[in-house]
């Protein structure tokens, strides 16, 4: 009986340990995370429409029916990332996620200069270099400093009603995600 109780107690203790191990391993082991899904759809520095069906499951679940979204993966080891688009839409917002899909930075068109989408993502060290002699291209850019090596930039654009769809389609297709 004593042995039975002991194995029961050991089992419950073990369950606690297994619980914690699984919990902390899940984010890095998940095979269906946003990064992996985008990886299956396109390479780095390409904007992929969210919810595009490329394979068995959609790349990323859309946030909601009123939005059009596109995501681009980047790796700061290749140099700074410049994300920009010409023109204006009723509302755009953007988030930068790390490789695990955690939101590390977000902004809307209100925060941007003249409402233009123009953003440079860089590590602190790269930013020092860039700011020594800011290239003309980065003249109006917002600088985002992050230590994340690999990450995802996601742009969302609001479609107030169907008549906006063609214009916003064009805007989303004109998004540029470029390294260096």
């Amino acid at each position, binding site marked *: 009986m004593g*042995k*039975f109780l*002991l*194995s*029961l107690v*050991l*089992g*419950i*203790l*073990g*369950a*606690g*340990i*297994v*619980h914690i*191990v*699984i*919990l*902390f391993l*899940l*984010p890095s082991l*998940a095979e*269906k*995370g*946003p990064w992996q*899904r985008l990886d299956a759809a396109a390479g780095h520095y390409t904007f992929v429409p969210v919810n595009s069906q490329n394979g068995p*499951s959609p790349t*990323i*679940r859309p*946030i*909601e*029916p*009123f939005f059009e979204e596109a*995501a681009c993966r980047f790796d700061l080891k290749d140099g700074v990332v410049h994300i920009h688009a010409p023109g204006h839409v009723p*509302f755009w*917002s*953007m*988030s930068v*996620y790390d490789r*695990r*899909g*955690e*939101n*590390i*930075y*977000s*902004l*809307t068109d*209100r*925060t941007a200069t003249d409402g233009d989408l123009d953003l440079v993502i860089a590590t602190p060290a790269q930013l020092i270099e860039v700011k020594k002699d800011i290239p003309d291209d980065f003249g109006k850019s917002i600088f985002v400093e992050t230590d994340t090596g690999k990450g*995802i930039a*996601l742009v*969302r654009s*609001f479609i*107030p*009603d169907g008549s906006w769809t063609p214009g916003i389609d064009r805007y989303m297709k004109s998004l540029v995600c470029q390294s260096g």
Partner: protein
Amino acid sequence: MLRNIFLTLLTFVIAVGGGAASVWYALNADDGFDTLRVGAWTAFPALGTPNASPYAKAAAARSGVLALGHAEGIRFIAKQDSAGAALSRNCTYKVAGNTPPARFWTLFPADPRSLMPLKAKDGLPAKLQSWAVLRQADGSFMVEVGPHPAPGNWLAINGSGMMALALTLYDTPAATSSEIGSVELPTITQAGCDG
């Protein structure tokens, strides 16, 4: 001897099975950690941020969702009406009141598990955004959500089973405010059911 093997096996089964089952249960539980309740609505302000609890992080990693950033907005989900009864697709609800200041907001009925938007029959409205909402003289609004057409603001539902409502505020100071728990959100009142 056999007894010892059995007891060792039992320990392992409890440890692995119990550990895995408890994680699975915790990740599927509705009222998870980091939740914020305002009336019938629930928000997850820490979802998808480095500040989220390990449970929220594990759940987010499994779902393939990239959550809204604080500067972008905040989403509230209701799975119950203001009286505490679960939202059903057979019933009609009146969503009435005001929202905290925001550039705009959107409202749509969703599947309670996946939170994917529910599809309405062709041509019927399944989503609403604040620029197109009809308002009362005092600026408040009332949206009728249900299977039968209604004058004013109406969101169509068909099918049966449970549902959820998703209200998302965009570009709102409420998302970053420390007083987010005291914001005013619309009430959800049931106004009759079919069958």
